[in-house]
C-alpha cells in the first residue's frame, strides 16, 4: 500500500458525492470522490466537515466502509455508510439530503489502532452492533480483495432484520469467501410486521450471551484477531463475554460510538 496512511499532517480535501444508496430506512451509503486521497487501512475513519453558506461548520468522524483501493481500483474513492441519528446535526444531512454532485471537506485517514492487516495469519472474528458493521465491512471487503485465506466470522447484532446494513452483499460474500455470518435480532415483534430474516445465515432473537458466543465464535484455542464495534453497551458486553470466555484481552480491539453526532 504505497499510499497507505502514515502518521503525519492531515490535510482537508474536497469530497464530491458520486453516489448515494439507501441501505436501510435510516442508513445510507455515500460514495465519495476525493482527489488525492492517501489511502486507508480497513477500520480507519474519515473526518467530515460540512460548511453552511454563512461559514458555520460542523465536523464528525465516520468509519470508512470500503476497501482501499475500491474494487474498481479507484484510489481516490471511498465509501461511508451513515446511520441517521434522531438528534444529529451532521448525520441527517449525510443520510438524507446529500445528493450526487454535492461537496464537502474531508480529511484522513484517522485512527491506526482499530485496523486489520490482511497478512495477519489469525482467524478474523468480528462483532458488529448496529452501524458498527461499517469498519468491519471494510475488513471483510479487504479480506476478499487481498485474497486472504483466513476464515472470518461475523456476529452482527441489529434491532430487526430490516435494520441490517449490507445484507445482500454479506449473503453473496458468504457463498464465495470463507465468511460465516450470524445475526442477532434484539428487538421483538418484527416477524409480526412481515419482516423476513436472511435465510442463509444462522440467527438468534436475543442479545449476545455466553452460550451464543460459544456456538458462533472461534474457540479460544484458535487465537483469533478480534474486532468489536458498536454502541458502548454492545461493545462492553461483547468484550466482557470474550474475556470471560478466556480470550486474551490484548487480541481484542474495540471501537465504540456513543450518543450524539
Amino acid at each position, binding site marked *: 500500500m504505497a499510499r497507505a496512511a502514515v502518521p503525519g499532517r492531515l490535510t482537508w480535501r474536497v469530497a464530491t458525492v458520486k453516489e448515494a444508496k439507501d441501505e436501510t430506512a435510516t442508513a445510507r451509503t455515500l460514495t465519495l470522490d476525493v482527489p488525492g486521497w492517501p489511502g486507508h487501512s480497513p477500520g480507519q475513519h474519515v473526518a467530515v466537515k460540512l460548511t453552511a453558506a454563512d461559514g458555520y461548520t460542523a465536523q464528525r468522524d465516520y468509519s470508512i466502509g470500503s476497501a482501499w483501493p475500491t474494487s474498481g481500483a479507484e484510489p481516490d474513492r471511498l465509501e461511508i455508510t451513515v446511520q441517521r441519528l434522531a438528534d444529529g446535526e451532521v448525520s441527517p444531512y449525510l443520510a438524507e439530503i446529500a445528493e450526487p454532485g454535492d461537496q464537502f471537506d474531508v480529511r484522513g485517514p484517522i485512527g491506526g489502532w482499530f485496523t486489520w492487516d490482511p497478512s495477519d495469519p489469525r482467524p478474523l472474528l468480528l462483532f458488529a452492533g448496529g452501524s458498527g458493521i461499517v469498519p468491519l465491512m471494510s475488513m471483510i471487503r479487504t479480506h476478499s480483495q487481498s485474497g486472504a485465506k483466513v476464515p472470518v466470522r461475523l456476529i452482527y447484532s441489529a434491532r430487526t432484520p430490516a435494520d441490517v446494513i449490507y445484507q445482500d452483499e454479506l449473503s453473496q460474500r458468504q457463498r464465495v469467501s470463507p465468511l460465516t455470518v450470524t445475526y442477532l435480532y434484539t428487538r421483538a415483534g418484527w416477524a409480526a410486521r412481515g419482516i423476513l430474516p436472511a435465510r442463509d445465515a444462522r440467527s438468534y432473537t436475543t442479545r449476545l450471551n455466553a452460550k451464543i458466543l460459544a456456538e458462533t465464535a472461534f474457540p479460544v484455542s484458535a487465537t483469533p484477531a478480534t474486532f468489536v464495534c458498536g454502541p458502548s453497551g454492545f461493545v462492553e458486553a461483547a468484550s*466482557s463475554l470474550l474475556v470471560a470466555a478466556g480470550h486474551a484481552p490484548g487480541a481484542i480491539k474495540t471501537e465504540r460510538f456513543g450518543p450524539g453526532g
Partner: protein
Amino acid sequence: MSTVTRGFTGRRRDDPKLPPGQYLEHGFPVLQAGPTPPVNTATWTFTITTETGGKTTWNWQEFTALPAEDITTDIHCVTQWSKLGTHWRGVSVDTLLMSIETNAAYAMARSYGGYTTNVPLPDLRDGKAWVAYSYDGKPLRPEHGGPARLLVPHLYFWKSAKWVTGLDLMLHDKHGFWEQLGYHDYGDPWREQRYQGD
C-alpha cells in the same frame, strides 16, 4: 477555505464554553481501544517514577486517605463531543508531587491494560490535573476508567488516562498510545489540536 455544502444549514450553538468543532453532549460516551480491564482496589497501586528511577507508591487505602478535592469542569473529547460542568472528586497531582524531587519536563501516564499518554509536566501542576476516583458523587465506573483515572480537563480527554496506575516523569518527551498513531502531542481543544500537524 472551506467548501460550502449545498443544503446544509446546521444547528447554531453559540455556547462560549464549547471549543471549535465540538458539540454539546449530555450522555457520557466511552472511548477506549480494548476491553475494560478488571482493576481491583485490593491490589491497585499508583506509582510515580522519577527520571532517576526513584519510585513513590500508594495503595488504594493510602491514596484515598490523601487530601481530595471536588472538581467541576468541562471535558472535551477528540471525537467532537464536549460535556459541560461535570463533577469529579480526586487527588490533585500537586499533592502527589509535593515530596518528589524531579527535573522532568514531561510525564507518561501509564494504565492497567497497557494504555499510555504523554503530557508536559507543567500541564499536570498548579491545580490543572487530578487522579479522580469519583464521578457525580459515586465511585468512578470501570468503563469510565474506574477505580481511578487521570483528569486533565484542559486537554482533549484521551490525555485523561483511564485505569491509571502511574506517572513516569521524563526529561524528554515520548509518544504515548494515541500519539504514536498520529494524534497530537499536546491536544489543546481550544486550538483544535486533534492530529499531528494541527
